[in-house]
């Protein structure tokens, strides 16, 4: 390469880097603004922009977080026009609720999907192809289609507002993608891995638990992150099946409520939003590699 071409290359690189830097800053500014606002004193947040936090320097505080997490006794009018009295553990409770909803909603569908994927990949039974075709077709079916019928079932079964109900709902809506992803992985495990086990007289369930599950850990990890982010961040399924009571409401529901009822209380909203974001962000940064793998393997979800 000549030195002129080299120089041209360098200049080109500089330009590309600059453009990328601008884009990255643009992308990050909304989050940075939220983060800074959430630790500014109430009066500051409501009177000046977050960018003036650096010039004014009236200090930072964790008061917003204390108020949002602990919650003081107060009344307010919600979006529907009713006066609601909120008391005691506010988002702290919703935080635990989110975990209670999310953990089984991730593990249960993965267990069931892995078993099904194993069945589809390594067993012969009537209707195998038909059933799998249905799974593929269901990949893109919008979950909106299920809301009314399932809500009716839940009303007659007494499952509305229960954890079991929402776990099963997330399981149902997560299964097509789960089966599809895990099938793609499990069907590529070499046949001789199983054959020796079967020859030794191991039952399929034992082969599944001892061989297939451990061998599928990378695929399961991707799926778990996928499902985790999806369930934790979901609003619609929670709204429909958990209902509005604060006892069971998850973070997204409470945050959406706060937007409706206290849309101008920016000091609280920003802190609340950050609390809702912190867990998925941690998961995301810790396990980004698996998440990307999962995205590659198939990314259509109904």
């Amino acid at each position, binding site marked *: 390469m000549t030195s002129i071409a080299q120089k041209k290359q360098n200049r080109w690189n500089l330009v590309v880097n600059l453009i990328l830097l601008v884009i990255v800053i643009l*992308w990050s500014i909304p989050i940075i*603004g939220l983060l800074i606002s959430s630790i500014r004193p109430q009066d500051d947040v409501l009177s000046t922009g977050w960018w003036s936090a650096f010039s004014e320097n009236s200090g930072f505080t964790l008061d917003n977080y204390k108020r949002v997490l602990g919650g003081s006794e107060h009344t307010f009018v919600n979006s529907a026009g009713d006066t609601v009295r909120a008391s005691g553990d506010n988002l702290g409770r919703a935080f635990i609720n989110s975990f*209670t909803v999310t953990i089984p909603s991730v*593990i249960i569908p993965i267990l069931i999907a892995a078993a099904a994927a194993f069945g589809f990949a390594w067993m012969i039974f009537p209707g195998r192809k038909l059933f799998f075709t249905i799974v593929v077709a269901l990949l893109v079916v919008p979950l909106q*289609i299920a809301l009314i*019928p399932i809500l009716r079932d839940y009303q007659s079964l007494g499952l509305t507002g229960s954890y079991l109900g929402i776990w099963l709902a997330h399981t*149902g809506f997560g*299964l097509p993608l789960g089966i599809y992803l895990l099938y793609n992985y499990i069907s590529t495990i070499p046949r001789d891995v199983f054959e020796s086990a079967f020859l030794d007289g191991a039952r399929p369930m034992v082969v599944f638990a001892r061989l297939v599950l451990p061998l599928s850990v990378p695929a399961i990890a991707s799926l778990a992150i996928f499902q985790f982010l999806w369930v934790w961040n979901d609003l619609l399924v929670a709204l429909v099946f958990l209902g509005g009571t604060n006892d069971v409401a998850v973070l997204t529901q409470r945050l959406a409520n706060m937007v409706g009822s206290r849309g101008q209380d920016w000091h609280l909203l920003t802190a609340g939003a950050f609390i809702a974001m912190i867990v998925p962000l941690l998961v995301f940064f810790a396990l980004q590699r698996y998440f990307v793998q999962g995205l590659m393997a198939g990314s259509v979800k109904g």
Partner: protein
Amino acid sequence: MTTTDIRSEKRGVLASALITLGRLGVSLFVPIVAFGILWAGFIFLRDSNASQAVIAIVAIIWGVGGVAMLFWVTDWLVNRAPLSVAKKLQPFVFVGPALAILAWYLFVPTMRSLYLSFFDAQSNNFVKLDNYIFAFTDAKMLESFVNNLMWIVLGTGGAVGFGLLIALMADRVKLEKVYKSLIFMPMAISFVGAGVIWRFVYAYKPAGEDQIGLLNAIVTLFGGEPQAWFTMAGWNNVFLIVILVWLQTGYAMVIISAALKGVPSSIIEAGRIDGASEIRIIRSIIIPFIASTLVTVSTTIVIISLKIFDIVFTMTNGNYGTEVIASMQYKQMFRFYHYGRGSAIAMVLVIAVIPVMWYNLRQFSKREGF
């Protein structure tokens, strides 16, 4: 035959009958115990006054352990059956639960929604196509169709366009990982969380006051009038779509970036030697090479835009002309309790994804091994 033979035969029959009975007893006993444990857990969870954290932990163990136990018990049961029967049942121990849940939650509901969509609000009277006539003629519905189309075109175009641009540029620099990580980050944030973030960016205060929203602060800095962005007819949709683009660009970028790594460098080098400009190389070599990836990514984001709900629900609740199909459906269900219309609108969403479904199925049927 001697008498002893007959006696021992009798004892044999009795013994085997007893054994069968015993086996049957055990076969019943284990599932009953399993069911008892599950039921006790259910009662505890329903009636307990223990602290929230304790209930949460019990709920998690009960839910997850329950599923594992059900698998184990059915497998155990099937293996007690005669070998020929067990062999036939075995696959369904694995596939059965998934199929049952899929049937309950997605397959049958599609049929039930189709059925309900021909009935009135309380699903009592057959109303023929009235709900569909509503879905395709109501002013709000038509508004939501137009808006959804905007979401699909601008949202998908924006996310894929930016994603492609960033992926192409990041491919050429050293700090690729850092840049990509930061652009990808919003993927982890919920639509509701993103809503709050962007509400803050769009926040409006009357002229003369200090603006706390970034966008209005910039506008006033350049001497403009502060705007209430969410009430600007037409444009407010664009401001909402920006949020989706912000969230989904990272996804498009990551997938496209992986596809870019698969473009053989020999072809690109050959193009360079022939003196093609960088733009030309991108247009004539790289884009055609990753075309199928672009289609996949676009399809996924089209489906997300089609079903968009959370952003609209939290930001404007469909007011000021920002209604979309999914928010209309939610309102028909929970504000007007009109199950017929709600179902018909849900069917509209299903009809809209049929082309994608058909495409997926065609790809699938081409696959070997099935």
